């Protein structure tokens, strides 16, 4: 589904990704873990063609998308829920959703309207607030809106950057159940999380990223066996 091979991305002379190889399988939840500054967000931006990698390749269903444009990546089925949600604060909920469908807004009006209705069916609280300015929504609602907005491009792969950041535990649980629900409907998920315990509960496969390299990959069952990873990334069991 998604194949990333030897991806190198640099800011000026500083390499944030030093050759990352990973793959996300169809219908799975792939989780990327790692400390701050590991290059997780850079990896997401590189996959979404927002950043231009120095070398390496990104393939979606065997189609090379490396170095093309963000609109092209969207059309190939990759959508991004950015860190801190970044909903358009001054726009209404409905306008945010329309912005999410921007790439097909002129060609597929009816489809966009149908997808807006679907989004409201999934997130009833957004329907009640469809005309409300997004900046006045609560953090949890804004995160729902960010997910709904990303889904408006009908992605095959939904990439989520720290969706639980700054949210109350109850809301976090809700977000994770939505992720699972979307996954059940056939959307492949690539999830970046700091909340590793929570993420490992739903992930099919995970990658550990540190200083721009994949240091470990496996399935959640394997992680408990590796004490080093336990210590380094999930917090030591002994305080």
């Amino acid at each position, binding site marked *: 589904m998604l194949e990333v091979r030897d991806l190198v991305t640099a800011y000026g002379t500083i390499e944030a990704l030093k050759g990352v190889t990973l793959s996300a399988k169809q219908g799975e939840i792939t989780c990327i873990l790692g400390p701050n500054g590991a290059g997780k967000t850079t990896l997401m931006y590189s996959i979404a063609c927002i950043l231009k990698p120095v070398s390496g390749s990104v393939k979606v269903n065997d189609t090379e998308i490396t170095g093309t444009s*963000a609109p092209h990546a969207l059309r190939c089925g990759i959508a991004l829920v*950015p860190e801190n949600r970044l909903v*358009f604060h001054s726009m209404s909920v409905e306008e945010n959703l329309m*912005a999410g469908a*921007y790439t097909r807004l002129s060609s597929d009006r009816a489809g966009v309207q149908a997808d807006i209705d679907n989004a409201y069916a999934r997130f009833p609280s957004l329907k009640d607030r469809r005309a409300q300015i997004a900046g006045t929504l609560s953090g949890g609602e804004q995160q729902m809106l960010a997910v709904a907005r990303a889904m408006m491009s009908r992605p095959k792969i939904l990439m989520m950057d720290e969706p639980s950041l700054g949210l109350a535990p109850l809301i976090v649980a809700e977000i994770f159940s939505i992720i699972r629900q979307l996954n059940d409907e056939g959307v492949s998920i690539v999830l970046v999380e700091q909340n590793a315990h929570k993420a490992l509960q739903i992930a099919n496969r995970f990658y550990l990223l540190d200083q721009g390299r994949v240091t470990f990959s496996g399935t959640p069952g394997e992680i408990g066996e590796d004490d080093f990873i336990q210590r380094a990334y999930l917090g030591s069991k002994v305080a």
Partner: protein
Amino acid sequence: MVDFIQTTIDGLSIGSAYSLIALGFTLVFGVMRRINLSYGPSIMLGAFAGTWIFVTLDAQPWLVAAVTVAGTVAVGVYVERVCFWAIRRDAAIASMVSSFVIWMQLEEVATILLPGRTYPFPELFRTGGVEIGPYFFRMEYVTTLTVAILVLVMLRLLLFKTRFGLALRAVSENPAAAAYMGIRPGRVIFRAFVLASLIGGIAGYLLLAADQQVTPYFGLWATFKGLIAMMLGGMGSIPGAVVGGLILGVIESQTQWYLGNAYKDLSSYLVLFMVLVLRPGGLLGQGIAEREAQAFRRI
């Protein structure tokens, strides 16, 4: 009282043209958080192109209007490519300085095109005006006000009912988030420039047709009026630009009538100063100023 209302009517008419210029500034500022100092001079050069075909080819007023608007758009595109597109997003000061340099260049071009100081500019209608009761409506003011309202209505529809409008508002608020939606900020900025120039060209034509003359100083004058009106209303705020322009127009015409021509600009600077002290974000720009202050505190 009759005098006061009459001057208010005149002020609102000329102010509606100021509003249009302020809208041009605010659109560009909103979409890229940079000020285009060359905006007034691009309108001036467009108007010089218009007056050039009027003087040399004796063109019809409608053709002069078309050439003025088209010329302004052409110069606006040039300014965008040189001062904004070519300069990195985070170098706002470099853009502003280069737009100042291009301003000088545009004035040079204007004086090469037409070496004299003052040139005639044709009015759209030769009829004098309409009298309603004790009030007199100058025909060119009626035209200005009507066209300004039309432009505003169309701009509103464009911003809130079209795909381009959605993209423009998205880029104004958050270029990064807009890019994640597949919007290309560079293209939106370019189109915003074209739109601003279009509005500026229309405003320039209306103002000059009312004056019936054009000088190379029109660029400086238009930049001043537009900037003051925008700052009065609030940088980046579209209703602010409209309100700021109207207020500026009324203040000018009232002081001109009651205190004399010499106090006209002085009073508008004084009002701007007071507004900026009391409400630093402008009259309607408080929300934007507040957001930016919050963002600054977060850094």
